[in-house]
């Protein structure tokens, strides 16, 4: 089984490559990269005018499997991933049951391998039962395939537990992944605290709830010399804290979602529950800080925080609607938009979706070097399409981008040399 | 005022008509006992004030004067969004009174029906009478005026307007020929 991808503009930030050349895949591995190649018996993909990149990596998704398959499951979630150009996902452990033991890890990986359309790397829990009290068996979880540890959605409030988690994970070599938020400051807030929340009469979540916890977690990482990965960063202050920490050598990595660099709190007007997420949509100033953070490398990667919910959980009053939106199928064009508006170079954008997240989590992906697993995405950067939530691959339809005109899409997605998505 | 408009009554004509109506009211009711004048907003209320003044000039006594807004009693309310609600000012009990309703132009009779309902909601008058400056026909309800300034056969397409000056004095009655 050979596949030859011809004439595409190959962008491979991990190897500093950006030029038109061909790529030959044999037996699921990248066999050779070069100009004007031919290969007997190979299936040929003509990538003229397209961009060929390493398979995209999303470090933050909720696949809802096991336990909430009515929202999404590993099959539908990875199909949505493939349609969005992603070949690797890191799934968060707020499943039912949570990912605090080897059994659940093995179930997820097996199902993804057997029935899924993307690699799934589970993020195990920091604490047993996600209760924030006792550490999970991190060695065992890592051996089973976990690439990091998080109690995502439920911030680790206890400083002691966070300190111990960082200390314990350090020799294992996996990051502690944090949803950094001081819940006592969030209270029952439902959107960013500011003028819009004041006007709409909705309880606000102040930026300090994120900034304060990011600062604490960075300091704990610094104190323990262990790696912390800050999930879905959303405030100007948090980006600045990461920037300063990186400058002094703290092992901190972070990610930003497309919605946090695209939308502001203004999207909440009209009480649109598709604009309700955690962390909340912030201000234009914060959006600018996200772009600047991506541009200067403070923010390592772009992650979707793909969070499927059933319409019954969104079609309610704003205050009681669930947090989150789906994002796998809209992340790529929203990222390319940053390139079009000049916030990022195309190489920076690709790096934020491939090599950088791979590096943050120590994944052997995100590269097109000969010998690497053939996870490849072929992108048509000019393709215009309109988002129709109902027509997306995800089981859920909770997206604020429904009806938006997007530019750019994955036309081929290959995992280990197998085509997982071909755009019709 | 368009060239095609026809003046039906000028200021002097209106004044003579109202003077005659004032006398007729007094004659018909044998004086002013229990008499009350109620004008229908807007237009009828200005004429009612004039009539009341004329009656008091004749009799030397002011009869009670009121104004009624019939918007809330219209039969087309709820299908129209352009109906401004005016104030009803009847500061005397209507029960037992001989109420003379005053309006400028009588047409379908629907306004008068509404005005009668509005008055009855305020109490039980001994009787209700109707004074009209101009009757143009085309009744849709069985309503007949007791006092008429002028009868004027019109076609449905035509309009009749009573003009008032800034002091709310009637200046002329115009027939507007449309189409």
């Amino acid at each position, binding site marked *: 089984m050979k596949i030859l991808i011809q004439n595409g503009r190959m962008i491979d930030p991990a190897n500093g490559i950006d030029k038109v050349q061909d790529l030959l895949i044999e037996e699921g591995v990248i066999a050779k990269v070069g100009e004007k190649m031919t290969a007997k018996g190979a299936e040929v993909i003509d990538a003229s005018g397209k961009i060929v990149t390493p398979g995209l990596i999303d470090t933050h998704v909720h696949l809802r499997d096991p336990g909430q398959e009515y929202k999404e499951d590993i099959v539908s979630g990875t199909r949505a991933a493939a349609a969005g150009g992603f070949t690797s996902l890191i799934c968060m452990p707020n499943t039912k049951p949570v990912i605090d033991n080897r059994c659940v890890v093995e179930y997820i990986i097996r199902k993804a391998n057997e029935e899924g359309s993307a690699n799934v790397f589970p993020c195990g829990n920091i604490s047993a039962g996600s209760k924030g009290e006792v550490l999970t068996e991190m060695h065992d979880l890592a051996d089973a395939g976990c690439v990091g540890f998080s109690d995502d959605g439920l911030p680790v409030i206890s400083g002691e537990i966070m300190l111990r988690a960082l200390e314990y994970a350090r020799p294992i070599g996996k990051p502690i992944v944090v949803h950094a938020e001081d819940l006592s400051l969030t209270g029952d807030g439902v959107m960013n605290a500011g003028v819009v*929340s004041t*006007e709409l*009469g909705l309880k606000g979540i102040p930026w300090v709830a994120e900034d304060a916890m990011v600062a604490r977690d960075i300091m704990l990482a610094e104190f323990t010399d262990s790696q912390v990965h800050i999930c879905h960063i959303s405030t100007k202050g948090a980006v600045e804290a990461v920037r300063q920490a990186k400058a002094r050598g703290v092992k901190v990595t972070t990610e930003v979602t497309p919605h946090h660099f695209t939308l502001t709190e203004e999207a909440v007007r009209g009480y649109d529950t598709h604009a309700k997420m955690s962390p909340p949509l912030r201000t234009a100033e914060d959006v600018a800080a996200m772009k600047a953070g991506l541009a200067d490398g403070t923010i390592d990667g772009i992650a979707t925080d793909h969070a499927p919910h059933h319409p019954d959980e969104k079609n309610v*009053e*704003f205050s009681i609607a669930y947090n989150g939106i789906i994002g796998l199928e809209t992340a790529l064009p929203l990222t390319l938009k940053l390139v079009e508006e000049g916030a990022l170079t195309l190489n920076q954008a690709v790096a934020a979706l491939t090599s950088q997240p791979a590096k943050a989590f120590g994944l052997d992906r995100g590269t097109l070097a000969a010998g690497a697993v053939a996870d490849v995405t072929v992108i048509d950067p000019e393709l215009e399409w309109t988002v129709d939530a109902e027509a997306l691959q995800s089981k859920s339809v909770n997206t604020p981008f429904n009806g938006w005109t997007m530019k750019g899409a994955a036309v081929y997605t290959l995992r280990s040399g197998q085509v997982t998505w071909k755009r019709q | 005022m368009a060239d095609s408009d026809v003046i039906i009554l000028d200021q002097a004509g209106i004044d003579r008509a109202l003077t005659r109506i004032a006398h007729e009211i007094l004659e018909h009711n044998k004086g002013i006992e229990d008499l009350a004048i109620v004008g229908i907003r807007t237009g009828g209320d200005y004429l009612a004030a004039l009539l009341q003044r004329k009656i008091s000039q004749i009799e030397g006594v002011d009869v009670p004067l009121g104004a009624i807004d019939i918007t809330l009693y219209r039969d087309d*309310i709820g299908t129209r*969004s352009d109906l401004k609600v005016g104030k009803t000012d009847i500061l005397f009990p209507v029960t037992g009174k001989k109420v003379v309703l005053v309006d400028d132009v009588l047409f379908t009779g629907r306004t008068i029906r509404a005005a009668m309902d509005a008055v009855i909601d305020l109490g039980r008058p001994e009787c209700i009478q109707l004074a009209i400056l101009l009757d143009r026909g085309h009744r849709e309800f069985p309503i007949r005026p007791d006092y008429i300034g002028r009868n004027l056969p019109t076609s449905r397409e035509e309009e009749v307007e009573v003009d008032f000056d800034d002091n709310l004095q009637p200046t002329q009655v115009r027939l507007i020929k449309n189409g």
Partner: protein
Amino acid sequence: MAFNHDHILDMKQFSAEDITTILDTADSFKEISQREIKKVPALRGKTVVNLFFEASTRTRTSFEVAAKRLSADGLNIAASTSAVVKGETLEDTAQNILAMKPNIIVMRHGHSGAPHYLAERLEGVSILNAGDGCHEHPSQALLDMMTIREKLGGFEGLKVTIIGDIAHSRVARSNLIGLKTMGAEVRLAGPGTMVPREFEQLGAKVHHKIEDAIDGSDVVMMLRIQRERQGKTLIPSTREFARYYGLNPVKLKLAKPNALVMHPGPMNRGVEISSSVADGEQNVILEQVENGVAVRMALLYLVSGADGSIDG
């Protein structure tokens, strides 16, 4: 007269002209309540549903009286807010009521934006917001404004001070927006926990020393301190609140000599308002209640006139 509103959701939707239309209409309706037979047939055959998800005797009764005086058929439904994905949703509840073909739903709900949610989803019915969460309470602001206009003749250049838990007050928000639209100056005052500085950006002047706020005011409006709702974290005690932020005759002297004292009720005597001020000659609290019926009649009338006959 053009009143192009199918729903009455908040004060933001109104122009100065709209507000004047509502207040003029309410002035006309006030007379009806002074008659022996307090009833006109304006809304005969129309059904008004009071859908209250929060207990409220005053507002509900006021709307009920208003509907009855306009000859509408009214019914009261006390509903409870459901948890998400458990039992009936708000839309389910509303669709059930809609099946009974009401013309107007007057609703109060604990969640900000709930009336907007229903207005977006229901067809053929007008939604009238009787208070949503911490967002708005337009009929309360309009009755306050009617009272102010009646007593002081207009709004241009007036200084209106609102004191209390502004952050959680829908009355304050609606009054702020309405009064600003009509050209008044609005001052908001209270402790730092109750008056967020964001209100400056919404056009108010924020004060934390109420003496500064009251100084030269034409109107002083006190909000109810809801001990049960505001928990422990906003103020240390009602005693301290009363002393530093409550209205008493000494502080009231700083306002203009005939300044109005208003309160949306029910009052906490001795907390936000001292009894001598509550019983004083400057208070217009009962006029507010009376005008509440007239304003609600006007809103029901205007929104029903717009029913079905308005494009856009």
